[in-house]
């Protein structure tokens, strides 16, 4: 019995869909056991008519059309998998939650340098309204499993298919990226926070120790630490580790634990904090919508 699947991206970049294709020849053999009922990027079916076993849904809900589509598709699936970090947590587009919808639209249509819009038109005819904030897919539809990653590495996708074909639940690593990283950790103690690219960038040594912000301690393993292998600090795309909902909070704890705590000469924590630019964009790059506060608020409104 072939596993019937549907694949769709909502307000997405298609990276997760290409990640499936990146199984290359292994995908061809996998196709023996899969029946693709709906996948607009690959085949010409215009709608999903029958029920499927698995829906692979990537991207995040950015407008009303996305929301309707998510509901329409997941109603026909026995299992819905949030494929990738946008689906699981909101993803990088979730950073739009730091701005009001009006600010977002005005930048695009009125103030960008090349725009020629003397009538100050803000398009609003026949377009599905934009959702005020991005929320993770699980706030819209029932999600059976998350498969995080931006995109999930082909190895993870392959494992996911194998688990599904064997009727097993889709499970993820319980470790953090530090576990998969080959850089040497000597003394986890930071006395400074450098901007990425500033300073020497020694290869072979833990980047957090060198003073570069790295989200490894607060990020789930499964990606084989590919970024660290090319000396790029982890930015947290696999989302928070097992049993952690708020990745940023976890990272704050992690930094605090290594922030020169035993130095007698003492690095003033306030000073350390001023070295750290863009706290929200670093700690919640992929997970802002699924974090506890989830968006920017404004003070000054009286109840």
């Amino acid at each position, binding site marked *: 019995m072939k596993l019937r699947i549907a694949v769709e991206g909502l307000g997405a970049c298609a990276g997760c869909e290409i990640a499936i294709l990146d199984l290359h020849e292994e995908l061809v053999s996998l196709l023996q056991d899969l029946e693709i009922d709906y996948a607009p990027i690959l085949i010409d079916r215009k709608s999903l008519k029958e029920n499927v076993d698995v829906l692979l849904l990537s991207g995040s809900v950015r407008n009303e059309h996305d929301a309707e589509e998510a509901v329409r598709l997941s109603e026909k699936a026995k299992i819905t998998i949030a494929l990738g970090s946008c689906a699981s947590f909101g993803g990088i587009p979730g950073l739009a939650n730091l701005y009001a919808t009006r600010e977002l639209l005005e930048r695009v249509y009125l103030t960008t340098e090349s725009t020629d819009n003397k009538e100050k038109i803000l398009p609003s005819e026949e377009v599905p309204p934009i959702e005020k904030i991005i929320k993770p897919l699980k706030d819209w539809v029932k999600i059976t499993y998350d498969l995080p990653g931006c995109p999930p590495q082909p190895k993870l996708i392959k494992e996911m298919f194998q688990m599904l074909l064997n009727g097993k639940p889709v499970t993820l690593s319980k470790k953090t990226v530090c576990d998969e990283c080959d850089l040497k950790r000597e003394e986890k103690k930071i006395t400074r926070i450098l901007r990425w690219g500033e300073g020497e960038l020694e290869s072979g040594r833990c980047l957090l120790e060198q003073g570069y912000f790295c989200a490894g301690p607060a990020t789930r393993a499964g990606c084989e630490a590919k970024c660290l292998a090319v000396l790029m600090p982890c930015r947290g795309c696999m989302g928070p580790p097992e049993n952690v909902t708020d990745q940023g909070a976890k990272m704050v704890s992690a930094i605090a634990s290594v922030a020169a705590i035993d130095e007698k000469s003492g690095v003033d924590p306030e000073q350390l904090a001023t070295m750290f630019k863009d706290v929200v964009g670093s700690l919640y790059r992929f997970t802002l919508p699924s974090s506890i506060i989830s968006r920017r608020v404004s*003070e000054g409104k009286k109840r």
Partner: protein
Amino acid sequence: MPETFEPYVVGFLCNWCGYAGADLAGTSRIQYPPNLRAIRLMCSGRVDPTFILTALKRGADGVLVVGCHPGDCHYINGNLRTERRIVFLKKMLSDLGLDYRRVRLEWISAGEGEKFATVVKEFVEEIRELGPNPIEGNANET
């Protein structure tokens, strides 16, 4: 007639110092506002940033964390860890639009009942000035 806003403040107090200090204020009959909801933990270092964020998300207008003076922590440096966490957390909260003064860290020892009461009084008034927590009902206005 506008309703006066009564701040709801959550306090995470460490067992050895903060909470003991609060007790002392009580037994010494030193008045302090009833707006504080005290939660006792063994150490201020137990305060996970998640607790503070959750308290704010659920509507607390302010969060007070009280630990031992540096050097006096019953577990050596739990209080220093929390100090660093809160410094970064405040920056994060600012970036998210919240006034960082809604979170406050104080060192109050078991013998400083007077100080405890004063701190709570000041903090509650500061929060009253800031106004209610903007998180609920503020979903990114257009």
